[in-house]
């Protein structure tokens, strides 16, 4: 078990290192440099001023030196300075993190609560009308842009209930009820999409397991149908589902980017879009790295859960 964890950790660190290189290179693909873009809107560019900013940014140095100093910065917990606000980036990001984590967790809860049971029902009732209806509903979840779904939800509230969902952030300590309402709607919009994926995986994974001999044995013994499915089949079908949940948690962040924007929630994902639009590159670079770390961590947790859920994995590698 220990070597297994050590192995996974080593791979995670390597992947993270690779991601930092990819992010660094991607952001330097831009034609012209950051300073040009910063000045593009201003029109007139003072050459001396430009040099001063380049020097301040450390951009007059070779790429490898820039990369090394960026990595050292991150490793020491320094996230650099935001250009737009002229503040340390961490000071701006810190209050945004809980909002995003809360929204992501809530969306994940919705996704699992909606996805797993419908997947099971769909598998048990394979090829019936109910199965078709559930599959169409879940596939439409994968087809609707989540930002549009969010807009339609807001529009629906306004038209049918004459009620406008709160579109400015309410702190949970200020008004808890309003805070919950404010998070439930966007979480539903994001969670619906993820639930569709979870439902599909649950269905196909369960269908596969239900063809196994030991399930037939359980039926033959006259075991209660519900016990066979929920206790025997689902237990072994859940591994791919856990993988998808782990991947989804990372990918939820993609959905949050637009949903936070539509619902005007002050989270990390909305800030990333704003930073991109303002060309606040140091912030973008660090935020994307932050997302990469979250992705790697959730993959790592899934790997660990594997070992717990399926003892064979531990000995296998």
């Amino acid at each position: 078990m220990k070597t297994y964890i050590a192995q996974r950790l080593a791979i995670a660190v390597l992947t993270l290192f690779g991601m930092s290189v990819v992010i660094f290179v991607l952001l330097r693909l831009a034609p012209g440099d950051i300073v040009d873009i910063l000045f593009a809107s201003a029109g007139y560019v003072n050459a001396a001023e430009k040099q001063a900013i380049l020097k301040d940014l450390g951009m007059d140095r070779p790429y490898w030196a820039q990369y090394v100093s960026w990595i050292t910065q991150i490793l020491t917990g320094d996230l650099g300075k935001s250009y737009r606000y002229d503040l340390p980036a961490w000071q701006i990001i810190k209050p945004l993190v809980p909002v995003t984590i809360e929204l992501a967790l809530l969306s994940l809860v919705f996704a699992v609560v909606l996805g797993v049971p419908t997947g099971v029902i769909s598998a048990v009732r394979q090829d019936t009308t109910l199965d078709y209806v559930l599959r169409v509903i879940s596939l439409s979840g994968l087809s609707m842009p989540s930002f549009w779904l969010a807009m339609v939800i807001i529009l629906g509230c306004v038209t049918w209930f004459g009620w406008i969902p709160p579109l400015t952030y309410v702190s949970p300590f200020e008004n808890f009820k309003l805070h919950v309402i404010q998070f439930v709607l966007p979480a539903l919009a994001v969670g619906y999409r993820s639930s569709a994926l979870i439902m599909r995986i649950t269905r196909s994974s369960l269908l596969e397991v239900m063809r196994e001999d030991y399930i037939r044995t359980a039926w033959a013994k006259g075991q209660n149908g519900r016990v066979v499915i929920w206790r025997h089949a689902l237990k072994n079908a859940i591994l791919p589902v856990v993988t998808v949940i782990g991947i989804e948690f990372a990918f939820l962040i993609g959905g949050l980017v637009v949903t936070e924007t539509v619902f005007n929630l002050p989270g990390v994902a909305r800030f990333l879009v704003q930073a991109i639009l303002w060309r606040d590159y140091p912030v973008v670079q660090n935020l994307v790295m932050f997302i990469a770390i979250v992705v790697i961590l959730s993959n790592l947790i899934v790997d660990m859960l594997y070992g717990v859920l399926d003892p064979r994995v531990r000995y296998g590698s």
Partner: protein
Amino acid sequence: MAVRPVGAEIELTLPAATRRRDSLGAALWRFIRKKPLGAAGGLLMAVMLITAVFADVLATHDPIATDAAHTLAAPSGEHWLGSDHLGRDIYSRIVHGARVSLIVGLASTLLGSVLGGIIGLLSGYVGGKTDLVSQRVLDILQGLPLLVLALVMSASLGPSIQNVVIAISIPIIPRAARVIRSSVLTIREMQYIEAAGAVGVSHLRIAFRHILPNTMGPFIVLCTAQLGSAILVEATLSFLGLGVPEPYPSWGRMLSVSAAEYAQKAPHLVLFPGIAISLAVFGSNLLGDALRDTLDPRLRGSS
């Protein structure tokens, strides 16, 4: 005894021409009967293709002509789906938007799948260190959320249709490489490949002439499935103002800030472009699912 060419007998009893015609019609019919959802998806895609090709004929107005006298008009005989805050006809913009959406979607899917396919083919066929290194690099690319990667790419490349295509295609590469690699790994072990090697066929020729054609099934399935997500990412990028630039009408941008602002007064501004995006993605998802079940049973169920 004279050796009869193999297959001559079959040729006599079942003439090739009738066999092909029968099987094509029958196969299509069987597909519709067995996969009604997939056929519906195919129909949706066909409608989108026709709309995109004949956009100029189907549109009732110039999609970028503004009309200050008729802003935010409700759906009517003059403006079938209403008009936006600048008086532009929503129906005509959606019709022309289909063209933009389909071009960006197809181009980025093809670019990403072909590049990924070549990487997957080489990585699977060569194996060893090449395989290991390319797999780790693809891991890294796949690790970042698709939208975040596309967002950063399109921001760093600048707004233009070409750059949007590049930005969307990069995240597709690792997905395509995975699928092609895994089918190459199976095909590589087959006897006819060994036979080709034994008679002295070059590696390059084996890879591209003998292995590649046999990966077409999974490749088509992959492209159909990725087309939907490419259309979705394009819409999202355009919605955020980082996608298809003006003056091209894009479904995603039709939903951006202005639509949200006027949503209460004119809900059609929000509803119709979103329905168009959803139907297009829905169609390609349905078709992709059905094709996967039909062409490549091994992939069934894997999302």
